[in-house]
């Protein structure tokens, strides 16, 4: 899952290094526009619907957190 997600995000956002930090949102690497784009890509690729209450910084701060989130709703 992790590798598949990383490949997808690298393709969508070549300028962002998703492994650079464990605090992607808190460090300002991912802003709200990018988070929306990431979720949109995830929903398409993995066919999951992520409820709004899960859109909190902790769930998008790292690749591992995002992978865990997808698995939770798959």
């Amino acid at each position, binding site marked *: 899952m992790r590798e598949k997600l990383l490949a997808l995000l690298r393709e969508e956002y070549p300028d962002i290094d998703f492994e650079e930090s464990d605090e992607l949102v808190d460090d300002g690497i991912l802003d709200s526009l990018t988070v*929306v*784009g990431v979720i949109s890509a995830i929903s398409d690729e993995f066919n999951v619907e992520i409820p709004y209450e899960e*859109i909190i910084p902790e769930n998008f701060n790292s690749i591992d957190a995002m992978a865990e989130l997808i698995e939770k709703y798959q």
Partner: protein
Amino acid sequence: MTMSYNSEFYIGFLAVFLIVYFLMPRPRLRLFVILAGNMLFYKFAGGLNPMSVIFATAILVWLITMKMGRGYEECEKQAADLDRKAKNALINEAKKKNRKWLALGLVLILGFLIYIKVGRVLHFDEVGHIRDIRFTAMLVPVGLSYYTFSAVGYLADVYWRKAKAEKDPVKVLTALTFFPIIIEGPILHYDDLMKQFDEMPGFSYERLSFGAQRIFWGLFKKIVVSDRLAAYTTTVFGNLGEFFGIEVLLAVIANVLVIYTDFSGCMDIVIGSAECMGIELPENFRQPFFAKGAAEFWRRWHITLGAWFKDYVYMPLAMNPRFMKWTGSIRKKAGARASRIVSSAVPLMIVWILTGLWHGTGINYLLWGIYWGILIVAETAFAPELKKIPEKLGVNTESFGYQFLQMARTFIYFAVGRMFTADGSKGSIIHILRQMVGEHRLWTLFDGSLYEHGLDRKDFYVALAGICVIWIVDILSTRMKIREELAEQPLVFRWLVYYALVIAVLIFGLYGPQFVASDFAYGVF
């Protein structure tokens, strides 16, 4: 007698309030003192009759959040031993039930705000007593736009299970009527405030001193700089036909400084007041004119309003499954870039139209919202192209000169935005531009006639010096915590700074019959 945060009356009220507050031995008793303080404050700020609307709102919010909270609690009990899938299904079911309660709360609370906003457009009477309420005569509580937004946020947070429903109605009531924030915000998460109600600390010299410094700093911004410059801008915008060229340009520039020092000064007083009590409020400003673009500006100016729109309008719209499906289909047809632009532009434009209408219901506020929406959408949609321009021109984007120009552009964005609403008329920006290019009137800078429009030469210089001080403090505060740093300095130096601030406020603050201490501009929204 009116209660404005910059009045001597408020400072006196706060002093007496704090003495009683610190005499209370327990947080619970301090909570009741705050509630009593809220009612006393509101009695002078707007009257107890309008306050009853806020009380009704608070009770409604408490009942609905309690109902939703209970629904989730029961669901969690049932789901304790289930697997993840069954648990998700159960939570979804509880959410579906709670959606009706959320909708009821939103319709009633937002409905009232919309009714008042529309009523103002239709020139309904505003009355001061419950018995006078009719369909065309409305009772408008002070601070309506602010507490409504905070209340909506709290309802949504409980619905999304981002906040726990508060069981104690006294806390909900005290949070919704909390006097430092009731008139101009900041818009906040009530659960953050209510958590602090449990742990309100006793007297601390350091906190009181820091809070007092913040209050005096706010007073300095408001009554030394803002009220002074406003004397000039109100003269010019009030009689626009008589002013031309440089006179109008100066008024446009001064107008930006007026609203910045007015609103951020008010926030300093508000946050400082709460700090004295040991309550931390969210910041509303972070040196906004150091921003290098439109979107960044709104992350630094009226921060809590932008954050509210992001959390409760932008993200829910952008994340709506149907909307996502639609942008997904665009991705397949027109590619990822197009889909990404649409998925941000549509919710952004909606957010900015609503932000405009939040500020005022006239057509000029709508245009103002669209203006900012276009700037921000263009900035995000064309970010890759815009990034390439300096590269192609060989400009060093790290240089001070380039960054200074970016900041100047932010100032211009804001100044132009203010022109939409500056003279209060529908065609405000057209009038202003027409006057600006009519004549240049450059000679007024040199023959002294500039100083005949509400602000004499001495006052102009005082305001200018004040702006320089604010600018320096803004620069310093990007590098250090000023009050903490000051506390480390030798006693003589420290007190010299404190005295200088207090004396500046006492000597240069505008009082007396010549100037009427004006209310804060953001209190009317």
